[in-house]
């Protein structure tokens, strides 16, 4: 199949179009501006709507209006913009409305910097907005995955009537790789009988998140919980490499997983039995796979571009006796292969716990 050398952000934007997304609303912020700029050009050509919204708050609420109409809608942003969207994302979750929200992570807190980071893992995976809810979170690690996982995000969002977030660091958004720009399988379009299209010939429908009656909110939360459990059961994805004989398991997503692959190759050359588990979905987290591997390997090394966020979920998922170490570079710092290799060796020597 033909491949094109293309930027991650563009692959993502093209993925959205091929997923049938015809509504994009967004506000500029580096390092994701390629996405709105590409869609501003392409959407009108395929009958779509692009609105340069007045803020990220407006963007996410425009997404809500289009989504309530039964259409595939998306917004994208980074750092401060994603923070502004949290109220809306919580409403989407509460009203069970699908939407795709893209976070091309820049560093923080505050205005921070525009360098790649994974500082928003907790925000994306453990809420971000108020209330007892979960986003579906997908973590691409290549330009190809920016395309493929965006399509998947729309499918999952619709299937489960839930917001889905693409969580990628600025590196994945900004660099170029060859990418196949067509879906591997036909895009799925679940029916949306719940959408608000006017009550012609049917009962009026309602999309809301306010529950004031006795026990109503609790029942709603329990229903949501059931849905999240189902998502956890069915949809967790990860890549596993060299784990069959591994004594050390590296766990990393996004850019650090690529760095880890290089380090693992070097370590293997030195005779160190090390493998990689790369979560592709962050919620649902690949808990089962991590648990199974963690009871086989001697050591686990988690590498992130932050001060240690996913590592807590690894601790929860792993076998209780697992020895877990962490290596992180926050604030735009990169873990280099040599650094990761050094961490692998340290873990091997057993003086790191």
């Amino acid at each position, binding site marked *: 199949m033909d491949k094109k050398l293309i930027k991650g952000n563009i692959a993502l934007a093209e993925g959205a179009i091929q997923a049938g997304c015809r*509504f994009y609303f967004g506000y500029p912020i580096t390092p994701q501006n390629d996405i709105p700029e590409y869609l501003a050009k392409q959407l009108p050509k395929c009958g779509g709507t692009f609105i340069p*919204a*007045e803020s990220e*708050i*407006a963007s996410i609420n425009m997404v809500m209006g289009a989504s309530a109409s039964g259409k595939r809608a998306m917004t994208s942003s980074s750092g401060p913009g994603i923070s502004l969207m949290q109220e809306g994302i919580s*409403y989407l979750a509460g009203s069970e409305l699908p939407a795709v929200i893209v976070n091309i992570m820049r560093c923080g807190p505050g205005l921070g910097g525009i360098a790649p980071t994974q500082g928003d893992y907790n925000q994306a995976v453990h809420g971000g907005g108020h209330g007892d809810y979960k986003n579906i979170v997908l973590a691409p690690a290549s330009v190809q995955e920016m395309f493929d996982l965006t399509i998947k995000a729309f499918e999952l969002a619709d299937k489960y009537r839930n917001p889905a977030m693409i969580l990628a660091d600025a590196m994945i958004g900004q660099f170029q790789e060859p990418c196949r720009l067509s879906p591997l399988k036909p895009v799925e379009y679940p029916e949306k009988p719940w959408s608000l299209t006017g009550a012609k010939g049917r009962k009026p429908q309602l999309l809301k998140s306010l529950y004031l009656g006795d026990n109503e909110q609790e029942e709603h939360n329990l229903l949501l919980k059931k849905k999240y459990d189902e998502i956890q059961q069915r949809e967790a994805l990860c890549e596993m490499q060299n784990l069959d004989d591994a004594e050390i398991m590296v766990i990393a997503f996004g850019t650090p997983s690529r760095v880890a692959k290089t380090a693992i190759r070097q370590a293997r050359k030195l005779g160190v039995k090390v493998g990689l588990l790369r979560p592709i979905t962050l919620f649902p987290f690949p808990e089962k796979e991590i648990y199974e591997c963690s009871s086989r390997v001697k050591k686990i090394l988690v590498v992130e571009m932050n001060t240690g966020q996913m590592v807590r979920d690894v601790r929860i998922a792993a076998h209780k006796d697992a020895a877990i170490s962490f290596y992180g570079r926050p604030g735009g710092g990169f873990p280099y292969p040599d650094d990761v290799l050094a961490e692998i060796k340290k873990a091997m020597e057993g003086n790191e716990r």
Partner: protein
Amino acid sequence: MNAVFKRPPTLKDTYTHFCPGCTHGIAHRLIAEVLDEMQIVDKTIGIPGVGCCVFLYNYFPIDVLEAPHGRAPACATGMKRAQPDKIIFAYQGDGDMAAIGTSEIIHAANRGENVTVFFINNTVYGMTGGQMAPTTLLGQQTTTSPYGRNFQTEGYPIKMAEMLATLEGVAYSTRVALHSPKHVNQAKKAVRKALEMQINEMGFSMVEFLSTCNTNWRVSPLEALKVLENEMIPYYPLGVFKERTGKDFL
């Protein structure tokens, strides 16, 4: 006997949660009557903001999307762009529109989104217990302006209908009042005009209803109507501030 007044079919036969005397109910009825008369009920979608209007779906047999506080104009934007053939209205209080949601209302209006917004100006945050809003009158006591609103510290009451009328995207901006039968009749005409603007794709339309909140104003329903007439109208003049007559924007 001839029935001279009855509940419009598009207002559900149910108890309301509104306080006795509240004029939200009148605004609801006017909208229901106009939807019936224009025969657009089954293609209308309502988007209430957060405030006393949030239970809109309990009273209208139409599709309803509950928007976050202040964001109904953005939700309406997304919805109307997705379904240009439907009639989309937002319904907002003055906290919702004139405080937390100023950005969304201004930009929806400025883009000329072809939607209609009904705006209840009762000078307070009703649902949360009558706190000061940007629309609270000078000197007016509320739970958060216990000494009366002071322009030096709280600024002046904001005039949404006039402000929005300055924006090119606005087709219709008017202020009406709900304190007397004559004014209620005028208000109904404004509701119809606003929806006609949308049907004729003229752009953004907004009706500001001067309304009462007797509970939080701590007066009787009848006294509240007098307060509206004697204190609100002198500051918030009634009238049409913008009315597009042709598609001169094209």
